[in-house]
Structures are given as C-alpha cells and as structure tokens.
C-alpha cells in the first residue's frame, strides 16, 4: 500500500487526493484451482499482520426449512474435525497469538484468522482440515445449539435494539428469506438435527462455492502452493440450491409494536431499496450521509440536537445481494413521546423528497464517503474482506477510483430523485418498541 510518488503533487488538487492513491486491489492476484476454489492474494509487507479469510457463498438468505442453520453451522466449524478434534484447533492458534473468529450474514459466512506470517502454514492446514473433514456429533451439536440460544437471548431477546431489528426485517419482507433473523428462530435452533447440518455442509461447503482471500505480510506464491496442496483433493459439488423467492411489491404502510419494559423507546423504519450494484446505489449512499453522518446531518441535527427528542438518530442504505433496504432509526429519550420523534423523522424524509439538498450538503457527503473509503484500507483484515466481498458480490474487485467516480457524479437532483422514488409513505414499514400495558409482560420472547 505504498503511496504513489505523484501524491504530493496531487494533494494540491482538491478532492482528487484519493485518485492518486495506489489502489491495493490493483495488486491483487486471482488464482482458480481446478476444483473451482478461488484464491485472492494481496501482499503488503508494510504491516506485521496477515489476514487469512475463507468466504463461503451461503448465508441465512439461502436457508430453506431450518432457519439459523447457516449460523449454527458456522459454530460447528469450531467444534473439531477428524484429525484435529475438539478445541485443539483453538488451542493451537491461541498458542501462536493468532486472532480469529467467524460471522454469518444474510448472504455469506466468513471465517477469518489474523496472524503473523510464520503461522500462516499452520492456519492454511487447519482451515483445509476442517473444511474437508468436519465432524458433527449429536452430542456436540446439542451443546452448541445451547450456546447459540444463549447468543440469541443476549443479542435479541433481552436486547431492545435486537428486538427492533428482528421485528423490522420480518415486517418489511413478507416473502423473501431476508425476513428471518440470521441467528434463526429459537424453536428451529432447538430442534435441528445432525442430518440437515450435514446436508447443508455438502450442498454449500464446496470449493466452487468458496473464496479464500489473503492480505498482508506473507509470500503469495508460497501460500497459493500450500493451498493448492491441501485443497486440491476437495471435490467440486453441483451448483448449490438458491431460494427463488422475490419480494412482492409493497402496497401500503405496515406497522408493528414490540412491548418491552424500556425506559427509552425505540423507533425503526425501513423502505425497500435496490440490491447491490444498482445504478441508484451511489445516490442512496450520498443520501445516507446527508441524513445521518455527523452532528450537522439532518436527522441528528433535528431530532438529537435541536428538538432534544432523541439520544441518537440514524439512517442509511443497506445493500444486500438480492434486495436492499433504506432504513432509519431513533433512540427516543426516556420520558419523550415516540410519536413526536416519528413525526420529526418523517418531516425530514418529506423534506429530502421535496427538494434537492444544498451544494454544501452534497460536497460534505461526498467527502465523508471518501474519508470512510480510505479509512477502510487500513488493516489487513479490511483489505482481505474487501477483496472477497467485491468478488462474491460483483464478480470482480471494483477499483477505488471507480467507486469514487460514481460518488462524484451524484448531483443534488439525483439525491432528491432517489429519495422521492424509494422513501414513499405507502412503502414504509414502522416498528415501535415501547412499554406495554403491563410494562412489557410479554418481554423475553421464546424460552
């Protein structure tokens, strides 16, 4: 990630600085094995860290009968394989100061290990071992499902913001699997057995559905040779099944209430928006910045600062592979009326639909986007993530300059146009989290 010599000169040309940056993606090498496994390597010897990531092209949006399966399965990947049983894998990596974890989203499941170069051979072999030789026993599955249910209680059932998010997704999507929480419904997690887990493994955990992305301090030739050796015998699988469902058009406002004994009520709103890669994406990103980035953004200024109704207010564009959302949320101050926050929020939405933003707002938003894009290049983990996510979503790694150019092209009129097109009152879903008549007697959810 060495800075190009031209940068000093370019610094004088306002708003072009990032254009002079050498985009790390330009140095990324792609290797495809015969079995379809894709490997992205990006050497950067200016950092002491190498991030090794395995991206599986499956998320909760691919689940059929059992919700939460992609995530539960991610947990099982840490519970032992044929030659590395139990917690040995974690102990081995821990004894090398390596730092790893995994996460599951609606679209992907990601396993990462950040480590020092000398430990990369071990990481590669351990990853190959569990991806090829995972063991799933009923006993361990029973323990791990309890862990996941605890995670669900912590993140969702006892967490008002988790409850808001879950309710908002299932209200906004009536048909598409994005409506189910990634962690799954509790009753599914309680009952799913070894059989569905193994079916899931064999359907989606195949080399032609996986991308390995490595960035940081390592030797790419050596790493690719090792991956080739340890993954070469991994058999390609048929194209994995995908859900065919499309979300039908929403034809009226939807509302839901979650009763919890909260002091500070919560409010969340979502509108359907286009999926990743849509031409309206950059204008929606700019709109996000205008609404909620910084104290002078419209929502923060109005709801938090001027009217003192909220502890925080936010809004943004969330692009997923097969659908998108534009969302807004408010943490209402204890003692304040949530309907007042709702009215203020929708007044701001109507304002941005009714008139273009000022030139200053537009410039500020573009600058904010540029700063966050550059900030996202700082760690090996971020670089490896960016490469894999771009490849899986767009089939290529979009250059930084291309992304910045698309943002720079956005006009005041574009912002108003996308606001008017997507943020329609009849296409919004609204959730309130408020105390109930019995002060939230139904709180706690499934047990």
């Amino acid at each position, binding site marked *: 990630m060495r*800075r190009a010599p031209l940068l000093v000169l370019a*610094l004088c040309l*306002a708003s072009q*600085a*990032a254009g002079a940056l050498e985009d790390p993606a330009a140095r990324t090498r792609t290797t495809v094995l015969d079995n379809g496994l894709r490997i992205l390597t990006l050497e950067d010897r*200016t950092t*002491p*860290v190498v991030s090794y990531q395995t991206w599986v092209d499956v998320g909760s949006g691919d689940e059929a009968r059992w919700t939460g399966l992609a995530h539960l399965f991610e947990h099982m990947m840490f*519970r032992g394989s044929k*030659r590395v049983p139990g*917690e040995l894998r*974690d102990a081995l990596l*821990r*004894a*090398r*100061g390596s730092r790893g974890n995994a996460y599951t989203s609606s679209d992907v499941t990601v396993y990462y290990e950040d*480590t020092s*170069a*000398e*430990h990369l*051979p*071990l990481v*590669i*072999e*351990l990853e190959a*071992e569990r991806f090829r030789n995972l063991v799933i026993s009923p006993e361990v599955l*029973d323990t*791990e*499902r309890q*862990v996941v249910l*605890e995670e669900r*209680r*912590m993140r969702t*059932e*006892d967490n008002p913001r988790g409850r808001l998010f879950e309710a908002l997704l299932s209200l906004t999507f009536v048909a598409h699997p994005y409506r189910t929480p990634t962690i799954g419904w509790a009753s599914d997690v309680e009952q799913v057995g070894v059989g569905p887990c193994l079916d899931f493994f064999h359907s989606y955990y195949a080399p032609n559905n996986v991308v390995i992305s490595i960035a940081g301090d390592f030797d790419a030739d050596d790493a690719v040779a090792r991956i080739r050796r340890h993954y070469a015998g991994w058999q390609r699988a048929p194209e994995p099944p995908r859900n065919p469902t499309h979300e039908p058009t929403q034809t009226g406002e939807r509302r839901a209430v979650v009763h*919890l*004994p909260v*002091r500070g009520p919560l409010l969340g709103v979502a509108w359907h928006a286009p999926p990743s890669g849509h031409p309206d994406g950059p204008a929606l990103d700019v709109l996000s910045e205008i609404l909620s980035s*910084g*104290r*002078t953004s419209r929502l923060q200024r109005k709801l938090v*600062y001027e009217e*003192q109704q909220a*502890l925080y207010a936010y809004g943004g564009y969330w692009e997923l592979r097969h659908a998108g959302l534009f969302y807004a949320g408010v943490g209402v*101050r*204890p*003692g304040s009326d949530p309907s007042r926050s709702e009215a203020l929020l929708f007044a701001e939405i109507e304002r941005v639909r009714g008139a273009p933003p000022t030139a200053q707002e537009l*410039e*500020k938003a573009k*600058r*904010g986007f*540029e*700063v966050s894009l*550059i*900030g996202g*290049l*700082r760690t090996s983990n971020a670089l490896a993530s960016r490469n894999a996510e771009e490849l899986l979503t767009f089939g290529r790694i979009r250059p930084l300059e291309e992304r910045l150019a698309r943002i720079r092209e956005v006009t005041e009129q574009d912002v108003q146009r996308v606001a008017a097109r997507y943020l329609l009152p009849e296409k919004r879903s609204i959730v309130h989290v408020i105390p109930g008549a019995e002060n*939230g007697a139904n709180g*706690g959810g499934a*047990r």
Partner: protein
Amino acid sequence: MRVAAAVLPAFLALALGGCAWRSTPAWELPPPPVRRGPVVDADRLHRAELANGLRILVFEDDRLPQLGLGIAVRRGVALESVEEAGLATFTAELMGRGAGGRDALQLAQVVDDLGASLDTGAGWDSLSVTVSGLSRDAETLFGVLADVVRRPRFDPSEADKVRGELLAVLEGQKDSPAALGRNAFARVLYDGHRFGLPVEGSAQAVAKLRAPAARAFHGRVFQAGDAILYATGDVRFAEVRALAEAAFGDWPRGESPPLPPPPPSPVPAERQVVVVDRPDLAQAQILVGHEGLARADPERVAALLMNEVIGGSGFSSRLMSRVRAEEGLAYGVYSFFAMRRAPGPFGVSTSTRVPAARRALDLLLAELERAKHGTFSAEELESVQRLAAGGFVLGLETSSAVTDALVDLDVQALPADSLDTYRDRVAHTTLDDVQAAARELLHPERAAIVVVGPAAVLVPALEGLGPTRVEQP
C-alpha cells in the same frame, strides 16, 4: 511498523524444510520461536517537549493520506468527588460544543464539511480531544484542536442540552442488562467512592451541573505541563512541531491537581450477593469479583497472564472450555482486570438462561478456587505467553493503535519504551510469578456476586451463596 527480522531465518528454515515438513501436519510441529525485540518503528517516532512542558509525540505514516491529532491530559473522571460525579464527562462533551469563534453548530459544520471527526471524552484517568480526517486538511484540523482545548466557550444553552443528554444516557443504561450489571457491581464494591458510580456519573450530581463548573474543571485539568499532543498519519514531525509551538507555545504550564484517595481495599470484606430485579429477562447477567490491580503495579504482567489462562480472549480459556464448550451455558464468559491509576476491580462476567444461573455461578466460583489453590501447568503458561506476545503485535497493526498505546503510557506516566519491552517482560514471567499472582489476587471466598434478572426465580436459586439483597434498577 516492520517487525524485527531476527526470526526470519528460523521461519525460512521451517518453510523450506525437507520431507519431514511435507508429511507431518503443521499442527504436529513445534511452534516457531516467539518474536522478540522492539515493535515501534523508531525511524517514524518523534518526540519533543515545549518550554511549557507540553510533550509532543508524532508517529509518521505516509501510506494513506490520513491524519489523526489529539491532546490528552493526566487527569480524568477519577478526579471527581462523588458529589460532582459526571463533571469530567460534562466538561469534555461541552468542550466540543463551541470553541474559539465558532458556536456548537459552526464547529460541527467545519468538521463535517471535511468528512472529519471531532471527539472529546473523559476516561477514568484522562480527558482527551481527538480530531481526525484527511492529511490535506492538517491546518484546519489543527486549528479545531487548539480551539477546543484552549478556547472552549461553555455556552450555558449548550450546557443545558448536554446535561439533558447525560441524564438521558444514565436513565437509558437501565435498558441494558449488561450496564445494569456493571453499575451494580461497581456500587457493591466501591459505594461511597467515585469508582462506585459509572463514568457518566450519577443523576443527582449531573442534574446540578452548570457551565461555570465545567469551565472551572477545564481550567484545573487542561495544563500544558500535564498534557501530551500527538499526531499520527501522513504528516511530518517538523510541521507538527511548528504548529504546536504557534498554537500551544503560550499555554501556561500549570500544576497537576492532587489525586483523590484511592478506593478502599480489600472489597468486599465478605461475600455479598445482590440481585437486580428485572422480571422480564430471559438471561441472567452475572458478575463476580472484588478489588484488583493498579495499572502501574509490578505484578501486572503476571496478573494478565494468569487472567488469560482463566478467562481471557479466545475460546479455550479455562472458563470458556468449561462453561461454553462443555456445558453450553453461555455465549461468552470472561475475566478481567480494570486497571486504572488507582486499583480498579477484578471480575468475571457471563450471561446465561435464568434457570442455569446457579450452575454457571458454581462453575465460575469453582474455577476461581481452582486457580487460587490449584496449579497452573507449564503448557498453560507457555500458551498464554505466546498468545500475549503474538496478540500484542496484532493489536498494534495500525499507526493509530501504536499512537494510542504510547499516549496511554504517557497518561499513566509509565516508561516510554514499555511497548518495546513488553514481549520480554512476558517471556521472563515464571510459573511461580503466575501462581503467586493467583494466590494473592483471587478471593472467590469473599467475592461480590451480582446477578441481573427475575428476583423471584433467582433469589431461591442462589441460596447458600451468602447474604442476599434485591435491588430495583
């Protein structure tokens, strides 16, 4: 931030090894030697001190066109009395609401227009102001920093707003089981001392805060002789030094305000069980602990290694193995030392389904007993030594992380080379040191136990653990 090259020959030897390497799985090979030596690139690190005592630290990094600037002082929340709890946070927040020629919105506007960020904050031992953005905006960012540190306006109307926000934050903490647990745990250990309240203070004290109190507190703690100015990113040392001389050269040296008495110790004197009643919760939030260590304590490294074995990071600590992997009782279980200038608490925390709360607590207490009275193995020590040394370097990947760690050392008045010596200090810690730390620092027999959840279920379940009282959130 290149790491010392000493280990490379060993690495190459391993990588290029012969048939043995091909046939033996990597996990059966001994781990490569731990890297030692300096971690901070001395060529990029520059320090200076102005005549008024203001220390300057610059860590140059031209890889990205970014810049982070800040000033930190050596006094923070711990300076407050219980009666004024919240004053440091109130002051820090108000500093960011108008400074120099700009009112609150004008200040926010100049920052937002650059896509930059301005953060003011109060920790237990320090107040700080940080500004970050693109390096091409260095002069503007520096001007904002100087205004906020030296010329905050403390407008009464902004003070009213900030006070309202802080009160809302304190009330909102009651919606978070984790915050309820933390706050009750602090209260049980340190009631009557400032450590017994959250960083943000108490509602009673915050309700009385006004702009003049913030102005006075700012005058007490923001002194050149007590401050460090730091910069990291695409900027030259000489440039920062010149800007600092111009903006801060006439800042009075001042005097450090005297520190208040440290918290009482040992606490609690005997076992106490407190149940914070939240009948609606599915999970019980559990905290167990007592007094801990100060940041500068010579036993710190031994204590951290001991803590890592019991319940540090990762999935294979003793507590994680027992409570999560074997019994599936929790998503996470961790032990911690809150090391401040004065000793903060040691604790273990987890959350589990309400009916399993007693089982989880019994396991937690049993693991603490085992650590105190049992033995640690050489393998356990070696494993956490490697973890500490390796994880330490990963945590210093970015220049801003290095800078933050160096600033923390300055704030705590610890040796400036502590980062470079850390891996050696870890390596030189013996099994005896760790064993002694466990015997001396762990006191499960008199630990405070705090559980947040439905009291009607929990109180009978916790019978026999000690004198129990129920509190309302």
